[in-house]
């Protein structure tokens, strides 16, 4: 158990290794050429997301990827790889162009999460993520998504809805950061390794869950130690997927993508009448109001939220 926990945490640390190749570094090795496009045609050009055209083994594709910086200066310029809404809107513009001119799409996912700052909220990060997810679900061109490092929640999924989802061996994918999960469920971020294990974040676990389709082994000590070796292993996986997907009729392709996500997330159905009426209002209700929402879900609402909603406290105010 302790070993499993340590192993889970090792994956997280590897996925976050600063030496890990990002979208542009991988493309430099994967592609014969790349042409970057800029701007969302609405507000700006978010350098936390790169997008454009590339040629991979003779396949002309459009690409979208998150891009962290290699040094502090670049990290500041790229907001440490955390996209604002305009980044996802640039991505959507390039996705729609790819569909229009019949280029397949390859995405590279490596993000701690969408930028959580006030400006990101003001300009509609939730809207940008939801629309990007929706667009990818219906885009009439093949999509291959590669989780190369941190697959951080909605900010990752926004460019990770694919016909084939590939993950590098040491990539992780989660609904919330292990620190965030631990601080909510264990009340301390020290339990991040415990949370990492519980959430089954590793590429192999995600493969078992059906969220990831292919895991590509990394060379030696990992991608950070051998960038070109990583690209060399990744290229055939991407090309094989592109070749296979290109043979499908577009309607079937989009239908299969819909079913892929339609089927994710198991549940059961018990034969029972409609939900029984709730208990009399008052105590049961108070109890519910007292339940701390932050215990259940991510991200956390304002700390005051639940207390604000407890009548007595409210009355005191």
């Amino acid at each position, binding site marked *: 158990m302790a070993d499993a926990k340590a192993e889970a945490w090792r994956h997280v640390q590897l996925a976050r290794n600063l030496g890990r190749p990002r979208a542009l570094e991988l493309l430099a090795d994967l592609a014969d050429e790349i042409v970057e496009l800029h701007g969302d045609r609405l507000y700006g050009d978010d350098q936390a997301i790169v997008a454009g055209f590339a040629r991979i083994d003779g396949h002309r594709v459009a690409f979208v990827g998150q891009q962290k910086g290699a040094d502090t200066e670049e990290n500041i310029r790229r907001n440490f790889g955390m996209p604002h809404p305009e980044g996802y809107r640039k991505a959507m513009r390039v996705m729609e162009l790819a569909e229009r001119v019949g280029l397949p799409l390859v995405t590279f996912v490596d993000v701690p999460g969408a930028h959580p700052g006030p400006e990101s909220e003001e300009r509609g990060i*939730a809207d940008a993520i939801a629309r990007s997810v929706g667009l990818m679900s*219906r885009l009439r061109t093949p999509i291959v998504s590669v989780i190369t490092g941190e697959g951080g929640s909605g900010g990752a999924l926004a460019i990770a809805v694919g016909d084939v989802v590939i993950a590098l061996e040491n990539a992780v994918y989660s609904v919330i950061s292990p620190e965030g999960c631990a601080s909510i*469920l264990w009340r301390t971020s020290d339990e991040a390794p415990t949370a990492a294990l519980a*959430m089954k974040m590793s590429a192999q676990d995600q493969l078992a869950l059906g969220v990831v389709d292919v895991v590509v082994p990394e060379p030696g000590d990992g991608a950070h130690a051998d960038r070109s070796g990583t690209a060399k292993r990744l290229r055939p996986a991407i090309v094989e997927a592109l070749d296979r997907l290109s043979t499908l009729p577009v309607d079937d392709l989009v239908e299969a993508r819909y079913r892929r996500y*339609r089927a994710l997330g198991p549940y059961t159905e018990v034969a029972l009448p409609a939900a*029984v009426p*709730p208990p009399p209002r008052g105590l049961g209700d108070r109890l519910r109001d007292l339940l701390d929402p932050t215990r259940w879900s991510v991200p956390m609402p304002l700390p005051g939220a639940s207390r604000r909603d407890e009548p007595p406290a409210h009355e005191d105010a």
Partner: protein
Amino acid sequence: MLFNKQLDKNDRVCPNCGHHFRLAATLRIEQLVDHGSFVERDAGLQSVDPLGFVDQRPYPERVSQAQAATGLRDAAIRGTATIGGHRVALCVMDFGFMGGSMGAVVGEKVTRSAEDARAERIPLIVVSASGGARMQEGTLALMQLAKTCAALERLKAAGVPYLSVMTDPTTGGVFASYAVLGDVNVAEPNALIGFAGARVSAGTIAQELPEGFQRTEFLFQHGFVDRIVTRAALRAELIGLLAYLQPRPLADATTETNGTEGDSRPRLDPIGFLAAVAERLVPDLSTDDGTGSGPEPEGPARG
């Protein structure tokens, strides 16, 4: 208790200051739909424990506790109803059930509601109250964003309107999927609506958060909420909007005259409707009625 009795009489809105307290899904439905018109669907859907998730207590225990406390099977109730005589597909979330968190069951109920709305060509209304995705289901909870957004894209392509009602709180992955995507977004006053937790947001900047950050009025000001509506006015508001938000007519001049495919309306498709019904028994089947794999607007040829 006295104050709570007053609150209940007033749909959980403070008679003194007008503050909107959270409202249970069952009471929300009572308040919104024509009396007795709600017919629940998929009442039996229940969460499983795909990750074998244990924090201080196992996930299944938490679910059982929430079920006992709320009388609900999970954080959403769905079905059909009429509102001012307009038939709608309706899905209502309940914050009281594990903070309204979205796992596979909530995602499935929202998705089936969208698929029913599309198959039956009736407007979709989702009332959100949620802290976001349910951690205990890991990335499978995250995938509910893709599942629901994909179904809403098909609904949109079919020309069937979707009305999103945001209540306190609507945050995280629920806000970043179906809650934000309404053709019309209405929200109750002063509801917490946002993507990242405010603590996280604050952490990213030196200065204070903007006044009213992540409240309904803030979202309205920034262009993401069409109308701010008090609970007392909500039913009338929905009736008013539904007079305009009706599915695009199936019979269209172009098809009547020359049947070209320039026309974008899918035909009503009994097969598709049956498939939608069948899908409830076989969850891993898509309910696609065959017209949905095209981009908007859809080609009707296979209908």
